[in-house]
């Protein structure tokens, strides 16, 4: 089967959103090249929904939007892995109906299940029009209405989870396939994982303009293309 993630996400383009396709930067690492692979966790519909939602959280301006920076791929990988399965989460019941906000997350679902259920629930709610079929203002209103929502515990938990994941995906090290071409790090000026500031920290108000470098960067070499071990299809 010929499969293109880019093609799936292209469908999310709507009036006011950038028509530009997510541009794939040179691979930074072994994970970066996912184009020829099916989603690990999502189906195409879910991927489109997530792309539309995270691009409301982090829209395109002079810097890429979330989906342009690989955030959908990031979330897909996270939900397919130990994090999505609920590693590090205490999931024993009972799960009472009424909980205090100070007690934190109290749903019986690990993150992957929360996201699937959340998409299903919120797509069915509001006025029945799917998120990707709305124009920009409609998408903003749709996502805005979920923020701080009392609509239902699942919708509220889902919104918080998605905002967290989008933020992680935009700013985490590119080895997790978000933050492509260091979009998030370039935006703020974060130099990354190779950090040694002993002789600089007390130089006041002096810029530190270096190109960001992630964990997979090997000092003295260019982009770590040699780490690209996976074969390319499609």
């Amino acid at each position, binding site marked *: 089967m010929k499969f293109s993630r880019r093609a799936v996400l292209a469908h999310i383009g709507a009036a006011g959103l950038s028509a530009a396709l997510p541009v794939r930067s040179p691979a930074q690492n072994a994970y970066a090249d996912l184009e020829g692979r099916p989603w690990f966790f999502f189906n195409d519909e879910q991927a489109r929904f997530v792309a539309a939602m995270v691009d409301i959280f982090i829209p395109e*301006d002079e810097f890429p939007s979330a989906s342009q920076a690989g955030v959908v791929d990031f979330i897909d990988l996270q939900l397919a892995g130990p994090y999505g399965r609920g590693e*590090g989460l*205490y999931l024993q019941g009972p799960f009472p109906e009424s909980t205090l*906000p100070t007690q934190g997350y109290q749903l019986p679902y690990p993150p992957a299940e929360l996201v699937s259920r959340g998409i299903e629930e919120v797509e069915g709610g509001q006025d029945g029009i799917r998120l990707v079929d709305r124009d920009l203002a409609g998408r903003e209103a749709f996502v805005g209405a979920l923020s701080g929502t009392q609509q239902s515990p699942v919708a509220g938990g889902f919104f918080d989870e998605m905002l967290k994941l989008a933020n992680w995906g935009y700013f985490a*090290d590119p080895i997790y396939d978000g933050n492509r071409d260091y979009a998030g790090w370039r935006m703020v000026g974060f130099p*990354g994982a190779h950090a040694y500031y002993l002789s600089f*920290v007390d130089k006041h108000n002096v810029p530190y303009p270096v190109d960001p470098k992630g964990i997979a960067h090997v000092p003295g070499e260019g982009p770590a293309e040699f780490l690209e071990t996976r074969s390319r299809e499609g």
Partner: protein
Amino acid sequence: MAARTLPKTDVVIIGGGWTGLAAAYELANNGQRCVVLERGRYRHDATYFAGPGEHDDLKYAHQYEHMMDVSTQTLTFRNTPEQTALPMRRLGSFLPGQGLGGAGIHWNGQNWRPLPQDLQMRSFYVDRYGEQFLSDDDITVQDWGVTYEELEPHLDFFERVAGIGGAAGNVGGEIREGGNPFEGPRSRDYPNPPMKQPIATTLFAQGAAQLGYNPFPIPSANLTAAYENPYGAQLHPCTYCGFCERFGCGYYAKADPIICIYDRLVGHDNFEIRFNAYVMRVDKSSDGKTATGVTYVDEDGQEVFQPADIVCMCAYSLWNVHLMLVSGLGEPYDFRNRTGTVGRNYAYQTLAAATVFFEKDILTNPFMGAGALGMAIDDFNTGNFDQGDLGFVGGGYIGSTQTNGRPIAYQPTPAGTPGFGLEWKRAVRDNYNHSGGVLLHGSSVASPSNFLDLDPTYTDVFGRPLLRMTFDFPENDRRMAAYGLERVVEIVEAMDSVVSYATVNRAGPEQNYSVVPYQTTHNTGGAVIGTDPGTSVVNRYGQMWDYHNVFVFGACLFPQNLGYNPTGPLMGLAYWTLEHMKNAYIPNPRPLMDA
């Protein structure tokens, strides 16, 4: 009954963190055979924490790779005794450790001493303002039963073990410029010089000085020079890499229990450590006067009984209290009748802060950071100012730190900025390199309705009831935080180059304590030290009143929490206890104080 009983050892130590490894070092070198049981795995700075792999913000800071696994064991939480406690399903407000080194590998390294009056908090306030001052509020503040003069040599020794860098403010009564003039007299200077300071913390210090306060560098376990500690460990200078709190340090530049203690002990004939050894309970003798050892689940899931002459509880404050409760050691606190002591006087830390936005020519380079990098004033800590008209006890230091600029969490945005969208994105980018912070790190008084006990509903994977925490900020601390935040704002307004600021008060009006946002891993009390068995679990030597061969370590000993981070004080107490074990208890095992 445990499936298997092992040969007896002199000392069994529960937990391989700061206190457990210090106990093992001192007692093994005193001739006792020590077995340390650590629930987590082996790990080491050189092989596990090396950069750049360790500099993975997602994995360590946000997915808690170095911290305890709450799917195995967690606690339940509620704000008040009328509510139903529910499990803390993921980590948040505090991040306890698991594995060699405990939380000591992912700490910040801000290393304080208690003030002399901290250790005599009740007598100090009663002397100064009269009995009424404390009884106006329903708070159970008490004296520690050990004085600053008694602890000083041990506080000093830990500063040497960890190679603390700082500027002394009071050496033998002589006040020194540039240090903390309020600190108790120290026998000598810090072993290392203070850290270098970036612009943001410098602007704070200048603002505070202009108001007549006394800024000084925060005492730091991020090393400032090549250093050899008293055990012979070699440490290196900190690189200000900004991956400190929540990370292990592969540079050997943040003092931790692995490089400072474990490496100098491993191989000693009297020392053995077992990993993946999860202690279930402390076992008691039939006469009810001593413990016989501990039962743990080993890496194959088998229960094992380890007999021992002495049990050292070093499992971190919360889990020490949990172990006492599930083992039936001591009398559990009953808040309705105010009887019992185990679980009583649980306290936390009270935080209020301002994020400060500077002019655009101020470049803060926030990614150049270290866990203990910063400046502070102590003018508003417990008893350092006149509180007669203020109606609260306690206080805190006010400081400005620059710990990291890791952008998943470091997103300072001005008040009123939305939480997502174009405006948010713009604000994150515009302010990232032009912001700083000023924090009140406030104390936490003990109150009768804040306590630890066992949950009636939820269990851990071993089937033991979970620890149940009941906590909210007492009125006293809400007044303290409001007052402290006013002082924070005054300083911010006196600082140069400030455009605006945004404040947050965790103990503000209508704000209940929440286990969700990270605050501090400074959980204190529940097994407090003292001289009266009616109000303490251990005597002034850290020895349990009820079981004289059980010694307790860690912040669970604090009768109320200080306006400081806890590790300096709790390690001072640990070395004090160890001295009395070596010199008084081991030669002649008995209760060291009459009940």
